[in-house]
């Protein structure tokens, strides 16, 4: 096992030198480790300065998403802020070794991919650490108040980790573990630093005061206290009785507010949130409610990461009038039967083969490919009519059933699909490529046609 030790303090690592399979290289800066040509299995940071540990562990974790990182320190482990970034503390050799080998074993089983995009980094990090839970951590310096340290480390500078997290969750790669908090954000700028103020519901002034009310038992009069006060005593302005004793002569039924600006008396003040960042004033019901969960890798995420599957990326297509494949075939069979009885009722089937998905993921990474496909799906959605239904028979084969569409209509549809392809090509270097094949009832109908046969014949043309 190749271990890089970042020695920033004079401290021994008990038991580490006694083992033959351990090769230790000592460094005095984190940059040296990342620049070194040796591929280290484990990194150990020795330091007694909290900021130093935070800085080096953030740097090293950003560069090494799989490598186990350990810390040897004399500081109180419970109180340290960077527990989310590291794999543990070096206390004794046995504990250290068994945990590190667990991580490395899973890491070795991973298929080596061409590109390490953000999605891959976090997914592989999580996969290697099956019990890791990414918890939101309060940080007043963050405009969202909560941050996920591990996402911040991997994300690009200035990237919206919130959106990234949402995208991972939407693709069912990570799963929510526990609801940690519920925060409210400014609907204008998204900052969670809000100042809540109670204001007059009539004129929106903040100059409001609490006015106690008094209920006279003798005559039942209820009015603000100030109307009762005369000199050193309380006298009912209506029945003139002298109110001496709370609970006997009078009580305080409610507390109302008085606006000093407009004189309005009201029971419940309005609450508005003043954004500390952009200064926008919003009503509390307009604020964006964000629930902060802790996350871990989902079962689907594990499969996707381990087998490098496309299913999470392609899944975005499943939002367009999606039907399961057997249902899709059932409806198609029904349309075939209809067409046999009444040949005016046309239908067409369009098959798509997204043939460069794997290459795209290797070149662009999982995240960007997913975004690309998302863009395609959005345009496709505009094209699809409410009566059309879609399905998928494999990771790359996508099907559309277009009822009441003859070959002419189908050709038009195919042309529009091609337009989408062309327009997406112009956006950047790499783009989505697909082959389109179709079948229309009015063109080549056979009496013994079934859905399965039609799809098989299209499939064979798609794979050419």
């Amino acid at each position, binding site marked *: 096992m190749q271990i890089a030790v970042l020695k920033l303090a004079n401290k021994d690592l008990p038991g580490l030198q006694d083992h033959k399979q351990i090769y230790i290289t000592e460094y005095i800066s984190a940059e040296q480790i990342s620049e070194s040509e040796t591929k280290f299995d484990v990194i150990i940071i020795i330091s007694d300065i909290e900021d130093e540990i935070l800085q080096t562990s953030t740097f090293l974790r950003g560069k090494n998403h799989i490598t186990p990182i350990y810390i040897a320190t004399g500081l109180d482990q419970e109180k340290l802020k960077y527990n989310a970034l590291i794999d543990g503390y070096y206390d004794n050799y046995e504990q250290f070794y068994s945990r590190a080998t667990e991580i490395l074993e899973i890491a070795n089983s991973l298929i080596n991919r061409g590109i390490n995009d953000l999605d891959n980094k976090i997914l592989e990090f999580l996969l290697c650490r099956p019990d890791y839970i990414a918890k939101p951590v309060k940080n007043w310096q963050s405009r969202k108040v909560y941050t996920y340290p591990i996402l911040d480390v991997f994300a690009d500078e200035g990237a919206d980790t919130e959106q990234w997290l949402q995208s991972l969750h939407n693709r069912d790669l990570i799963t929510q573990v526990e609801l940690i908090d519920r925060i409210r954000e400014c609907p204008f700028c998204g900052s969670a630093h809000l100042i809540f103020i109670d204001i007059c519901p009539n004129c929106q002034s903040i100059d409001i005061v609490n006015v106690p009310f008094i209920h006279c038992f003798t005559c039942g009069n209820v009015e603000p206290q100030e109307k009762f006060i005369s000199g050193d005593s309380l006298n009912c302005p209506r029945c003139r009785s002298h109110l*001496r*004793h709370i609970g006997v002569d009078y009580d305080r039924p409610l507390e109302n507010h008085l606006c000093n600006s407009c004189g309005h008396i009201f029971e419940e003040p309005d609450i508005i949130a003043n954004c500390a960042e952009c200064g926008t004033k919003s009503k509390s019901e307009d604020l964006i409610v964000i629930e902060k969960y802790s996350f871990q890798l989902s079962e689907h995420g594990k499969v996707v990461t381990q087998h490098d599957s496309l299913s999470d990326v392609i899944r975005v297509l499943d939002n367009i009038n999606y039907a399961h494949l057997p249902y899709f075939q059932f409806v198609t069979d029904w349309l075939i039967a209809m067409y046999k009885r009444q040949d005016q009722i046309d239908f067409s089937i369009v098959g798509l083969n997204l043939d460069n998905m794997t290459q795209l993921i290797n070149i662009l990474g999982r995240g960007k490919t997913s975004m690309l496909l998302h863009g395609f799906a959005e345009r496709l959605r505009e094209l699809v009519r409410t009566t059309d239904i879609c399905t998928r028979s494999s990771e790359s084969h996508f099907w559309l059933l277009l009822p009441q569409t003859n070959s002419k209509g189908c050709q038009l549809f195919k042309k529009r699909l091609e337009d989408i392809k062309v327009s997406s090509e112009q956006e950047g270097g790499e783009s989505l490529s697909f082959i389109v094949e179709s079948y229309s009832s009015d063109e080549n109908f056979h009496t013994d046609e079934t859905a399965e046969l039609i799809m098989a014949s299209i499939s064979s043309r798609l794979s050419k």
Partner: protein
Amino acid sequence: MTLLEKIHKTIIFVCELFVNLDDLILVAHNFIPYVLFLELPFYLFVIFGILKYYTRVSFEEPKDILYYPKVSCVLLCYAEGEDVTKSIKSLAEQIYPGNIEIIAVIDGAIQNRHTYNVIKRMESYVNKFQNRNLKIVPKWKRGGRVSSINAGMNVSSGQVLMILDGDTSFDNNMVRNGSKHFADKNVVAVSGNIRVRNYKESLIAKLQSLEYMISIQSCRLGLSEFNTVNNVSGAFGIFRRSFVKHIYGWDSGTAEDLDLTFRIKQYFGKHKNLKIIFEKDAIGHTNVPATIKDLLDQRLRWDGDLYWLYFRKHQSGFAPKLLGWMNFISIIWYGILFQIVMPFMIAGYTVYSTFTQPGYYTTGILVLIYVFYLIVALVFFLLSSVLLSERKSDDLKKIWLLPFFPIYMFLIRLWAAVSTVAELVLYSNKSSSMAPYWVLKRVKF
């Protein structure tokens, strides 16, 4: 003799008394000494005081005293439970621009956990009021009333210190009226006026409310005019904090209120300007015993304590040089003759005439005594409710109780004699419920 004949004979006897002068002199010979020499002068003294007060207040130009010192209200809590919220609310409600610090001292807060929790809940209520705050002093181990008062005094910070019972609530002008007297540097203590809160509970409670009206509202007011207030009640006493601190606060032992009053008065001889004032408009409403048994228990304590205090503890303190002549005479008269000696005279005389005189004679005398006390009660009742009361119509409605009042007072006086004997023989103050026995047994007085 049948009962009817007995009553007939008594009536005839009483009527004849007023016709036959010789007989009247004979009866008066037996009856008059203690009435004339003990009671009447005292009553006249008090009535004179009340009239003096009334004329003074009527003709005096009302002064607006702009004096609002910080007031510390030490609320002595034990097992009052929910009742304590009434007291705390009434203190928070005070119409008083100055600062009021409410210090709730809970004696034995472990066994009185409920009361402690109730008070804890009141914190937020009090904090809503401006210039009011609630300090909670839980004394986990029970140490008795005096230890609570002294603890409260030590944590307090106001110039005016009020010692209040946890089951007493107050009119909303109490602090204003109670504290204004301290603008005069010579005032060291103010006795508050106590009314009965639970008078609707029973006849016994109603009679006590009449008793409080007469003996506190009227008598103390009258005495106050001559700076001879007999007692600053333990349930409701107001003090200049620096002064009580100077005399080291309260002594352990029972009747701590009377004890402190006496100790303050011991400075009167030397510092002739010092004053204890009764303020009738500083009003507290307290719960009184509603059953005969509870009432007798209470009075056994009070009256026994009186003897203990004057004859055991302060034997050597009785000197006009210390107390000043006015208070010396007043304490001898009201405190000793009136409250300790007279019950024995009444009891002795009743027993004596029962055994030596014919039945109708004894009964006749008792009727005469009854009429005399009824008149006295009526005079004081009217003075109290018409001249002094701030709740005149409420008080006047109690007039129907007057016929029962002399009987009530007669029985209470007899019981006072029993209490004194109990103290004399059994040292009953050492077994008071006001403090745990381990405190009382160590009291050195």
